């Protein structure tokens, strides 16, 4: 699947799940800045690396990174906490219920063992 279509699908999913659209690398905007940069290079006839020309591209990319990072940190933090809680819950369940079941089954087996002596 093409990147654009995949991204559109993902944004659509965000909306359908009723959540705010998550931050993404703003591909369209960066492409636009890139085209402006190329046009500028052609106009001034400059082919050397000039930092100032590219600062808009760089700062826009950096801003996107920061937003994505902020969003991901929050999401991962909240997921990790939720997983941790469920792990604790499963451990508690594993210890208490498994032991009770095992002891009950042990008694049950003993009774079944005595059954054979009953006439």
């Amino acid at each position, binding site marked *: 699947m093409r990147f654009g279509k995949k991204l559109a699908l993902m944004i659509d999913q965000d909306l359908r799940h009723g959540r705010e659209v998550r931050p993404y690398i703003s591909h369209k905007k960066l492409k636009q800045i890139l085209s402006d940069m190329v046009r500028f290079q052609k106009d001034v006839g400059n082919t050397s690396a000039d930092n100032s020309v590219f600062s808009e591209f*760089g700062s826009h990319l950096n801003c996107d990174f920061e937003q994505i990072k902020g969003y991901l*940190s929050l999401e991962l933090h909240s*997921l990790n906490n*939720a997983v941790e809680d469920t792990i604790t819950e499963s451990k508690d*369940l594993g210890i208490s219920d*498994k032991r009770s079941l095992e002891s009950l089954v042990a008694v049950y087996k003993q009774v079944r063992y005595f059954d054979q002596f009953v006439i």
Partner: protein
Amino acid sequence: MTPQILTDSCPRLHDMLNESIISLWISSTASVAAICDKFLVHVETFRSISAYVEINVAGFRKIIKQFHKQLPQYVFTHLQKLAFSSASDSRFQPKYTDLALELLRTQNRIESLRKNLDIISQALSATMAPLPIAELGTETITALLYQTDTQKEQYPRHTTDLIKDSMIFFPQIHP
């Protein structure tokens, strides 16, 4: 205990034990099923986060490719220096590694939860559950746990691949 006492007491004892085992089995299976529901929600959230990371890494790759195509005189490190104040800037390096590692940590925790549930479900199967309960219980849970294994193919991609991809942000990899 004489045979006579056993004969008298066994039917009642059997009934009582059967009832206790069945009731404990039902409550255990219900609790495991409830935890499995939570587990499924976690797996779905993790998948959604993985897909989100993947699309952003793809977006980054695409724009960098475009950049190189249109401005071939610029090397990648030069772009990095523009995007971040400096490639050796202490802010730069942890930008994606900490997230990639956090993603891996989350996956490991989910896997550990899956293993826990697997062990409990196996323990429940091993306790000679009454047949109707066994049918509704552990088989479904085991199948469900297998389906949601985070290492399986239904993931957009393995986390390790995502981590490798996120390495494109490192100046050491692309000098």
